Structures are given as structure tokens and as C-alpha cells.
């Protein structure tokens, strides 16, 4: 299924004109597959992308997320059984809570609702410096602000320079610059670490 077919399916599902049999019947609906897409050149770089939304979840009603954008714009985001959802792990709609932050991509419908193709809940992507390392945590400096990164057993991984992804975090060192992908714990300065990209490796 190419990206356009997928979006048409999701849109029609939202509109109630097609049933969704389930992700496994449609082939992969993982986020990576959802973005095996042709060129996306039609958006004015200075204008907000109409098929994208971000903000905090302020309400959940059935399969509709009510989201207040950081710019105070209100979004209605429709989730279907075909929506891929990430919240530290690939997960399901039940894992989304009021207060979560999110980024969403999908198709904007005529009534302004965004039919979500993908949701990334509480996801953060930050270049930081390691300032301390403890048992199960990293203290990180992010532009002068301290962030606590929690190591999640069985989930947190490291990528050292050009090596394959590993669960071994022992090569991380205080003072190193790293890039992290993680999930923010709402209303704190803490994140659960998904991947730590370490550009340099301790000797």
C-alpha cells in the first residue's frame, strides 16, 4: 500500500465510508512505512503545514483527541485503527493521556479535523551534554537547562558513532555531547530515554 492509498483509507475510515479490517490485514502500518512517501513539496516553508499539528492533549472523547497547540490553536485529531502511535514504544490509543504533548501527521478534513496517520506522544529530540551519570539515570544539559534522562530497562538503547544499536550504555561518559530521542514525563524536566546517539566513543 503506498502512502496515498493509506491516507485515502484513513480518511474514508474517519468519514465512515470504509471499514478498517486491522493493521495486519493492510500490511505494515509502522511509522517508518507510513513515511515511505513521495516528495512533500507543496507546503510553503513559512506557512504551517495543514496536515501537521502539535500541542498538549486537553481532552479525549471516543477516538477524538482535543489538543491545544503551543500557539493556542485548537486541534481535533481523529484516531483510527490505522493510526500509528508512539509513546516511548509503538503503542495504542489507550496509552494517550490528558496532559500529554504530541506531534501528529495526517490528512486535514473539510471540517478541520486532522485524521491522524501518525501520532508521536511526548517525543523529544534534543542535542545535550551529559553532566552526570547514575544508576539508571543521566543528567543532561540542554541549552543551560537540566534534564533528567531515565534509563528504561529493555528499552533504552545507545548508538555509538557508526556502530549498531546496543543496550550497552557503559561507554557513555560525563562531558560527552549526545543526541537523544525520548519521551517526556509531562510537567517535569524528566524524559524516558529511547535512544542515545553518542557521536564520540570513550576509549
Amino acid at each position, binding site marked *: 500500500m503506498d502512502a496515498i492509498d493509506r491516507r485515502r483509507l484513513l480518511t474514508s475510515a474517519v468519514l465512515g465510508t470504509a471499514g478498517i479490517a486491522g493493521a495486519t490485514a493492510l500490511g505494515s502500518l509502522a511509522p517508518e512505512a507510513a513515511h515511505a512517501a513521495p516528495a512533500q513539496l507543496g507546503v510553503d*516553508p513559512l506557512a504551517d503545514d495543514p496536515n501537521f499539528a502539535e500541542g498538549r492533549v486537553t481532552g479525549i472523547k471516543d477516538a477524538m483527541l482535543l489538543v491545544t497547540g503551543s500557539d493556542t490553536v485548537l486541534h481535533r485529531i481523529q484516531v483510527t485503527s490505522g493510526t500509528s502511535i508512539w509513546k516511548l514504544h509503538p503503542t495504542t490509543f489507550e496509552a494517550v493521556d490528558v496532559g500529554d504533548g504530541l506531534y501528529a501527521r495526517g490528512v486535514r478534513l473539510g471540517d478541520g479535523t486532522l485524521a491522524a496517520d501518525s501520532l508521536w506522544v511526548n517525543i523529544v529530540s534534543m542535542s545535550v551534554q551529559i553532566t552526570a551519570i547514575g544508576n539508571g539515570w543521566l543528567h543532561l544539559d540542554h541549552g543551560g537547562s537540566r534534564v533528567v534522562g531515565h534509563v528504561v530497562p529493555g528499552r533504552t538503547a545507545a548508538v555509538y558513532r557508526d556502530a549498531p544499536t546496543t543496550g550497552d550504555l557503559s561507554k557513555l561518559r560525563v562531558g560527552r555531547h549526545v543526541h537523544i530521542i525520548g519521551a517526556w514525563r509531562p510537567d517535569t*524536566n524528566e524524559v524516558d530515554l529511547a535512544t542515545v546517539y553518542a557521536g564520540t566513543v570513550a576509549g
Partner: protein
Amino acid sequence: MGCANSASPAYGEMSWFCCGSAWGPCSSAGGGACGNCTSGSHQCAWPHASAACYSITQPYACGHDLALRGCGHVFYITNQCTGGCVSASVADCGPNTHQFCGEKHCCGSTCGTDRMIDLTPSAFSAIASLSSGLLPCRIDS
């Protein structure tokens, strides 16, 4: 010019960053070096957005001689894992390429080496999943 058709493209890794109004640890990100960066627009951070920026990001320390492309310049960024392409205008200075010299990510036999460009979540998510972190890319002007 457009996607994957310029005479002298740059190759490397792409990632994403937030800017403008935001939630969580990004809430203090601000409008970037150009003052107009927002996560919802197709924008990017480029290591040579200005001479001052270049002295901070230092891509030359990793062997890259990147062209000066200031605020508003439009790049075409191709995800080399999927072929998806997005246009994005320069709105910030970054990434700090010299801090990650030699870093490499591959899709099969196609690899990108060194941090070359950061996209806003809106731009990055148009061609890749935000959870994929770093990906090899081609950059055309």
C-alpha cells in the same frame, strides 16, 4: 532546482529539533537564529547560516565545506531510506556538526555520515517517522 537534482548536493545525517512555541523541554526553544522558526512549518537549521554560526558548528572539523545559506534559503532534503523529499527554509543555526564527527547511519548500503541538517518536526515527519531519530539524507539547493 529541487529534489535530488542539483550539481553539488550535500550528504550526511538529518535529525529534527523543535522551535517556536512548544511544550516540554522545548518550551524555551524560541524562534531560532532567524527569529521565525516554528515547529509547525517546514524549516531547518543549517550549520552555515552565517559566519558566526559556522564558527560554532564547525562542519569543517569533520571535513565538510558547506555553502553559506542564510535565513530563508530553501533546501530540498531527501530521506535516503525512502526517497521521500521535503522542502524546508533555513530558520536556525545548527546542528553542531563538529561534536559528532564520524557518526554514521545507514539504510542497507546507503549511509549518511556526520550531522548535516536538522528539520522541524513538521518537515521531518513529512518524510520520516519522528521516532527514527537520525537518518541519512541528501541536501539540494
